[in-house]
């Protein structure tokens, strides 16, 4: 019996319908999606060339042509999958997106509609919901042509610029889908830009604020500074240095945030919500070019006050922009109302953006300085210049 089974299994096991060898896979590192004329879409992919990966030094990549461990192709079609088929005609290996880490969306497409083009990346069983998303200034296709010295594949470098260790903001496909599909939530996607090219050097990737979306369309953007206000509001600010001037003293003090205690409180009055935001960031002083002796608590209190005012201004400015210029809630404040007032939320959710624009938001920042670095008064000054 067992022998018959074993022999029978030989018959089935030889047919490997889905076998693809690793060296038949074209591993896509990044996909860039752009709008094309006639309601079409342009898809560009950057594919890793594993053979070039191990050998040679990192420096060799930007130099001699044809030796790069990556290459890019681009095609136009009616939707992503249609375009994928056209791309496949140019690529000798099967296009394989399971290792894709970043998805670029061109600015023009973002302004038209991103919802149509994002079904494929979530439906495809290869593609992962962890794929991070950025909006590019200008055409996304151009970003795949840029070389980057640090990483073997430039798009991995860009991903780290945008979402690496230096960033607190995360926007992957899963988060984006939640925000697109949930009433009352709207996405804010980080924007990547290229530094202006200088002779003899290729441009570099640079994080440049966030794009604001409503109903799947980009309606505007916040600058990097304004985006910091948004991070505070989203309770995603986990680090970051704020430089403040102290009234009555020349120079600036930089404070590095270590942690923050935040408290978002919503109240409901006559069916209209209001929100108060209380933030208690803790900081270290990392630079002090004023004449203040920061060993003196009195002076530290001055810095704390200036810091709190500055942070509050940043947040209030962002709130003002979101409420009055764009009228869109990308802060996720609706979630607090949903939690605290579920029955009222059912009514509010239908017209949340208008309601958000009217919602009073009070901001209270109580910054604390915990430590002051390696020296008290600045070492660069003579004794007479130090203010005690």
């Amino acid at each position, binding site marked *: 019996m067992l022998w018959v089974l074993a022999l029978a299994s030989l018959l089935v096991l030889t047919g490997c*319908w889905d076998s693809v060898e690793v060296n038949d896979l074209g591993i896509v590192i990044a996909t860039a999606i752009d709008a094309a004329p006639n309601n079409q879409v342009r898809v560009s992919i950057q594919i890793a060339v594993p053979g070039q990966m191990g050998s040679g030094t990192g420096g060799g990549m930007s130099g001699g042509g044809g030796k790069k461990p990556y290459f890019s192709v681009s095609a136009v079609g009616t939707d992503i999958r249609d375009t994928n088929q056209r791309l496949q005609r140019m690529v000798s290996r099967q296009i394989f997106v399971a290792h894709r880490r970043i998805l670029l969306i061109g600015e023009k497409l973002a302004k038209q509609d991103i919802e149509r083009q994002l079904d494929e990346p979530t439906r495809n069983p290869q593609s992962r*919901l*962890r794929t991070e998303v950025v909006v590019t200034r200008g055409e996304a296709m151009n970003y795949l042509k840029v070389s980057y010295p640090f990483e073997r594949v430039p798009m991995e470098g860009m991903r780290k610029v945008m979402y690496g260790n230096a960033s607190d903001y995360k926007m992957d496909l*899963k988060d984006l889908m939640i925000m697109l599909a949930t009433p009352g939530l709207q996405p804010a996607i980080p924007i990547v830009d290229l530094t202006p090219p200088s002779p003899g050097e290729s441009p570099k990737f640079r994080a440049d604020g966030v794009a604001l979306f409503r109903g799947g369309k980009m309606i505007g953007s916040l600058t990097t500074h304004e985006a910091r206000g948004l991070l505070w509001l989203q309770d995603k600010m986990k680090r970051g240095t704020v430089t403040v001037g102290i009234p009555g003293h020349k120079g600036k003090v930089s404070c590095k945030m270590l942690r923050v205690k935040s408290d978002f409180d919503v109240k409901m009055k006559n069916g209209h919500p209001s929100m108060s935001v209380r933030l208690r960031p803790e900081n270290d002083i990392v630079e002090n070019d004023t004449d203040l002796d920061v060993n003196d608590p009195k002076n530290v209190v001055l810095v704390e006050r200036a810091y709190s005012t500055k942070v509050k201004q940043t947040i209030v400015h962002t709130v003002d922009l979101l409420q009055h210029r764009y009228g869109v809630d990308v802060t996720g404040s609706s979630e607090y109302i949903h939690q605290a007032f579920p029955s009222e*939320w059912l009514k509010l959710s239908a017209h949340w953006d208008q309601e958000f624009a009217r919602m009073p938001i009070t901001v209270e920042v109580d910054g604390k300085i915990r430590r002051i670095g390696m020296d008290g008064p600045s070492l660069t000054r003579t004794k007479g210049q130090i203010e005690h």
Partner: protein
Amino acid sequence: MLEKGRISTNQLAMTAILTVLGTTILFVPGVTIALGGRDAWLAPVVGGLLGCVTVLVMIKLHKLYPGQTPVEYMRAIFGKWVGSILSAFVLFTLLRYLATMFREFTDFTITVTAFRTPPEAILVLMLAVVFYGARKGLEVVVRVAEFVMVIELTQLLVSVITMATKDIHWNYLFPLFEHGPLPVLRGGLLVGGWFGELITIGFLLPFVNKKKGVAKSGLLAIVGITLLLMVSDVYTLGIFGDIIGARLQFGLYEVGRYISIANFLERLDPIIMGVWIMLLYCKITLFAYVVSLGLAQLFRVRDYRPFVGIVCLLGAVMSGQMYPRQSDMTTYFVTAFPPFGFFFSVIFPLGILGVAMLRRRRGRARA
């Protein structure tokens, strides 16, 4: 006696856990969230209560007719003809459940990995091991379940709990009862449909070696299932939210795909897939065994083993015939399955118990 093997109460509990968990741990989060919204993670509690009814009724019936399987005592209660028809109904329903499992298995495997492989090829591999296992008798079936339960389920839980907890947004689980208690009840009825598969323990009870502690192990199994299903729901809901979570086909599998530890430990989906296939194997083998045993008793054949092959093949063929499209199965789960499951696993056993008690009383009065 068709079956000479004996199992312990612990083995009964573990088999019962796998009976429900085999399919549900992967499929249920999506459909429960679709019905229950943010309260979906409470639905297993309601389902568990329904499961308690099923288990307690099966145990009570077994006390009234010790050493007999449902097929045998239904004949004793209802007489030869009606009893046989009711048994045929039970066995056919279990066969349909078996076919549904085969379908879930092929749909899942084909969707996530083997796109071009014909479902028959995948089924043949599963059928071969199921056929082999089910023919070896109850003790083998149960011991494999025990083994899988201890090793695979632990692996699944450890890998998911340690690695995905950091991605949970706990506020996606609240507010509680935002649309009233109805969504929880609807979700619970749906989960209860799967808890209803515990009706199969009616076929195992005659072979438990100690009659003491059977109820305890049955209830323990239900607590275990409820908790594990809640874990599965909490992770799917907490990571994907109620809106996306409801649209995902394979909730817990997506959780596995979403795991990322320090950009290094990623794509744990093969682990979840492997574990799930093992769980499903146990469930399918048990069902194939129970249906074959029931058929043998129904037709008063001395050996159940000739039926195993027929049952497996029938299940495999039905899996393709019952649901022409995958969407048919999903729709069936959300629409027809909850009320039918409620009837089949709560009302139907209660009815049998009611008739059995009546008969007994009348019999006693006559004597």
